[in-house]
């Protein structure tokens, strides 16, 4: 039996290894999506002849690393009996361990005593993955139309670089030089991981390390089971609606029933929409990643590894939007419907862990812009991450703040200045919007408005995808839903038009402004119970208007002195409480503003 102290030391060591791997990777990659946006992750996996386990992960995009678990499993399965020391495997196929085609996972088997026992792994979203359209083919109707697809493949075999394979991969990419450098960075990170793992095994001996790994997994499992046992048994269901599949279907339900039984939870997605013809289909790696993300946020005190996930049993009905059958297109799934999956699991958990729930997802606001940069005469492709920065929700005891929820906070929001240097764009604004924070006893973060203008760009086109306008991110425990994402082209101008779902390859005149509104995260708890002093503070900070204070929170302020009127507030809160007690849904001021601005008609309430 291993002693817990040694096991704890091994755990700390492996977590430092994961951090070293991702640091090495992000510092050496050349694509902004890694080194600036950190859309990548690293982990250390083990294999014990039966199953692959995640044993340590870096503090980097959690969604990626949970999905990487499936990728490591797939590569082992694919190369069963054909793995050797010095092999380096690359995985991308969504139907073989991947999420969507641009997410590449590098897996490096580390052989000890003649067996592959550990796998440092790096996973990242590549800036391009071939295919007919840069940034993904919105019109794809199957996986083959989505870009370059390959089975798990060896980039190195027994330490020998496979030049033909590399050439084949980079020649199928619009950014071959970048791809080569980024793959080298990913492999470099894994090599650091391998070296560190060997040093650990040299020091303690493989048997001790393996026992420590078992202890680490069992310890998280035990704590997770204790946590689940404390939750009341029962069935807790929730539904999210996906606005669009980008192929004609609207308001697609994502449904989950969390069945808490003793020390286990079953997450059953029965009732979710049938898979779609469009690109919004999820696959197991991706669905599980979001399921696990929600549970990691529900239990932040438990170290995350495969042991943590053992008491969580997923049921993913095949042929649905959460587990599509080949060859459905899947390009959008890492946010659409991935984010809805995370959000709906959290919403269902409201029934048994109200003090722990809050927004753990984001909703899509994804524009690609391309054309010619007149400053250099070269073409450019800009995946605009600056416009989608806020989705942090309220939780018991804290308002939403900052950009994304903690679970997505490893992804960096780019710099305005660096973006203007790199791309032909001028930003007119990037700021919080008054009355856009989802009301609650603890409110969500306010929405964020970005206005961009082409600046010495010629022949600029854009594709824009929007989700979460018709059905925004959920509020919790009586808190309001987020106010919703939308885009307005040429705001206030003659050609003004609202983008409520998507545009595809539209031409943008050189002076055309585009406004992006990112709707923030959900609120938590009844807004009428919010501390009036906090409402007053938000009014002083222009985050809530005087009207909003009254409408959303029932707080009446003296407009001159800016003090709370306690009697008027009590009366207003009583009145609003009665009014809202009826079946009639009420809209927060921010949501009302968004509906008026966009002129859309949201779907009526579902029976859940």
């Amino acid at each position, binding site marked *: 039996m291993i002693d817990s102290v040694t096991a704890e030391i091994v755990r700390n060591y492996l977590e430092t290894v994961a951090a070293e791997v991702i640091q090495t990777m992000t510092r050496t990659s050349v694509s902004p999506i890694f080194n600036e946006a950190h859309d990548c992750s690293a982990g250390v996996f083990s294999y014990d002849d039966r199953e692959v386990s995640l044993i340590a992960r870096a503090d980097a995009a959690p969604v990626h690393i949970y999905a990487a678990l499936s990728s490591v499993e797939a590569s082992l399965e694919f190369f069963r009996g054909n793995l050797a020391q010095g092999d380096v495997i690359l995985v991308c196929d969504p139907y073989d361990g991947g999420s969507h085609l641009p997410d590449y996972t590098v897996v490096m088997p580390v052989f000890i005593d003649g067996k592959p026992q550990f796998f440092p792994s790096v996973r990242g979203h590549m800036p391009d993955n071939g295919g007919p359209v840069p940034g993904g083919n919105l019109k794809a109707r199957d996986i083959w139309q989505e870009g370059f697809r390959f089975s798990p493949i060896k980039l190195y075999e027994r330490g020998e670089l496979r030049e033909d394979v590399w050439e084949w991969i980079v020649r199928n990419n619009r950014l071959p030089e970048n791809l080569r450098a980024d793959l080298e*960075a990913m492999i470099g990170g894994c090599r650091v991981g391998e070296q560190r793992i060997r040093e650990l095994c040299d020091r303690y001996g493989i048997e001790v390390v393996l026992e420590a790994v078992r202890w680490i997994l069992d310890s998280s499992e035990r704590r997770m089971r204790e946590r689940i046992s404390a939750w009341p048994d029962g069935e807790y269901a929730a539904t999210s609606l996906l606005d669009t599949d980008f192929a004609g279907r609207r308001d697609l339900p994502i449904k989950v029933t969390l069945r808490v039984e003793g020390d286990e939870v079953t997450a059953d997605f029965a009732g979710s929409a049938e898979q779609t013809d469009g690109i919004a289909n999820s696959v197991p790696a991706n669905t599980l990643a979001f399921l696990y993300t929600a549970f990691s946020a529900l239990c932040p005190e438990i170290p995350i590894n495969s042991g943590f996930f053992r008491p969580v049993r997923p049921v993913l009905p095949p042929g649905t939007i959460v587990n599509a059958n080949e060859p459905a297109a899947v390009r959008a799934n890492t946010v659409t419907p991935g984010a809805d999956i995370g959000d709906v699991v959290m919403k269902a958990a409201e029934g048994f862990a109200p003090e722990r729930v*809050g927004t753990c997802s984001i909703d899509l606001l994804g524009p690609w812009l391309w054309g010619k940069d007149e400053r250099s005469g070269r073409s450019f492709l800009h995946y605009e991450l600056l416009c989608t920065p806020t989705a942090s929700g309220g939780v018991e005891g804290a308002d939403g703040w900052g950009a994304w929820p*903690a679970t997505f906070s490893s992804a960096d929001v780019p710099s305005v200045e660096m973006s203007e240097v790199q791309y032909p764009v001028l930003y007119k604004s990037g700021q919080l919007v008054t009355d856009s924070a989802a009301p609650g006893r603890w409110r969500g973060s306010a929405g964020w408005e970005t206005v961009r203008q082409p600046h010495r760009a010629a022949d600029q086109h854009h594709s824009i995808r929007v989700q979460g306008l018709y059905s925004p991110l959920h509020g919790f425990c009586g808190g309001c839903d987020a106010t919703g994402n939308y885009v307005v082209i040429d705001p206030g101008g003659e050609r003004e038009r609202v983008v409520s779902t998507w545009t595809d390859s539209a031409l943008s005149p050189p002076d055309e402004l585009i406004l992006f509104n990112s709707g923030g995260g959900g609120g938590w708890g009844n807004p009428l119970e919010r501390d009036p002093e906090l409402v007053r503070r938000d009014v002083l900070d222009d985050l809530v208007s005087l009207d909003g204070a009254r409408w959303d929170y029932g707080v009446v302020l003296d407009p001159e002195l800016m003090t709370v009127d306690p009697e008027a507030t009590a009366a207003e809160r009583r009145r609003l409480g009665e009014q809202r007690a009826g079946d009639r849904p009420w809209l927060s001021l921010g949501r009302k503003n968004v509906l008026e601005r966009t002129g859309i008609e949201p779907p009526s309430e579902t029976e859940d």
Partner: protein
Amino acid sequence: MTDSRAAEDRAHPQAPDGRRFSIGIDVGGTFTDYVADDGASIVKGKVPSRPGDEATSVLEALGALGAGAGMDLPLYLASIDSIVLGTTVVLNTMLEFDGAKTGLIANDGFRDVIELRRGHKESQVDLSLPAPTALIPRRLRRTVGGRVDHQGVEIDPLDEEAVREQISFLLEEGIESLAVCLLFSFVDPSHERRVAEIANEIDPSLFVSLSSDVLPQIREFERLSTTIVNAYTSPKLKSYLERLETRLRDEGFGGTLLVLQSNGGVMDVAYSKARGVDIVFSGPSGGVVAATRIAQASGYTNIITADMGGTSYDVCLVHEGEPQLGVDQWVGRYRVAVPLLDIHTVGAGGGSIAYVDEAGGLHVGPESARAFPGPACYGRGGERPTVTDANLVLGYFDPGRPLAGGLEVDAEAARRAIETHVGAPLGLSTEDAAVAIFRIANSDMANALRFISVSRGRDPRDYALVAFGGAGAIHASVQAADLNMATVLVPRSASVLSATGALMADYKVSLVQSLLVDWDDLDLDQLNQRLLAMQAEAEELLNAGEAPAEVVVSRHLDMRYAGQVQEVIVPVRSRTRRITPVNLTRTLRDFHDLHESLYAFKRPGFPTQVVSLRVDVIAARGGAAMAVSPFAEESPERARIGSRRVYFESGGFQSAEIFDGTLLRPGNLVPGPAVIHEADTTLVIAPGQEAMLDQHDLYVIEISV
């Protein structure tokens, strides 16, 4: 008239023996350390810090020094040539949130740049982590019209009327300090400068901090956050330094008062008081400077410094004599992007508390017992076990010997705390529980050392470990062995190393200026012009601070391959004031090589960019003379004071020889297992290791790996 006569009289008294002193003082959270050098010998010591009243701590340290020299305070102060301060005023201001009420002027549309923090959050799972306290609440963040693009082309002129209006509004709100951060001000600072002029017209007493002065570097969030920290902390620093200087002068001090900077240099009060943000790591950088100098004197240029204090363990990598600069430092919860030493901190200090989680996992820190109540063995009511308590049970401290500050140890309290909180839950004996705490703390520290080296592309085996702080040398030899490092160095002044660093540091001004240009478009004349202008600016600042006129200039370029966002800082080697084409070619080659040594690959021929220029101008201060002592005999017998049962990883508890470090002489060789008690510091030498005091008062511990 009598006043000025009195002042004159005070200016002339002399130490009876004509001695003149240089003083280094480091005010820490628990103790204020001091070191005095009279050219012939060095005196060191500590007094307890007075939280919230640093000036008094400094005067008490000086009083203690004077008393030791047999002089009253005025006489002693009159005999001092220079005092260099390491201060925690800035860091404390950020931790206690008692800085100046501060307002911000930003571009229209960009009121909230500070809110997003580039997406960064301190936890990636904990949804309930609240927002950081706003140093400037939103209502005091105001915007004005005016915009320049990335090349400095004015798109909209500055709306001066709006500037007046907003500054007046902020003054009515009672601000004491103003931060100004406009987009691309590092390319063209004229809008920011105009805002400052207008502010000065409206209220000449308002403290104004421009982002183009504080950090003229690309990336608006980083520049803004740094500028806000500066505006928020500087007024308090300014009033502290002015108050202290006045008190010292009133008491008879006629020498120079200098402040240790985060870049490891010193500057005068006039410079420092407007630049709080450059002083955040004042104390820690002193330790790194001293460790670097002392190790260098003994021939070690590649070192990792490890400072183990009461609450934290701070490590910094020094490569070829140069402490490395950090690129992504957060101080508390605030991003500070001025050049800071790359000091990586983990919560594993002597006071870090050990606890067992619900699943039986043992953890150490980050919660600390601090100075009050302190570790259980302090006997001040602390009931939870700390690393110091474990060290006591393991035999590293002499139970009969007072701890730093003259504190008696309560060994029973330490045993009880460990037994109750770790031994019982884990089913371990008290000794085994102490071993467990020791191992976990060591693994946290070793991981910090790994992180600072490996994730920066360096191999720890190429470095010597320099351990200091009260307990650093208890743990160092274990970590060094763990990381296959061959040598541990422990300066004899380990417990007051930051103060020693204050004594040793040179004047230094570090300037950064963004210049985004593709390597192929780099115009050598323009580059030289920019660098010379930066050098002139730095020299002017040094002159104003009355630094010696002779300077050493070093220039660096922040370079990267096109597409990368993190830069490599590449030295520009030039023998003259100007950079020649040959120098430039060499710089490009060095970039590729440096990139390869840091990141394991290089891409000669790939497009390369310059992002920023750096100029460091250093004026030597003469520093503390490093005494060289001749070697005495090899036998340490004269310093041996007994033996004791002490725990070692190999072999467990065993008898170890105990030495009184103050009696050891250079050349004495101490084989392990042994413990050396220096004043306020303990060195543990494991079996198979040997320690020798070298001619520079540096213990060199060799580890047979």
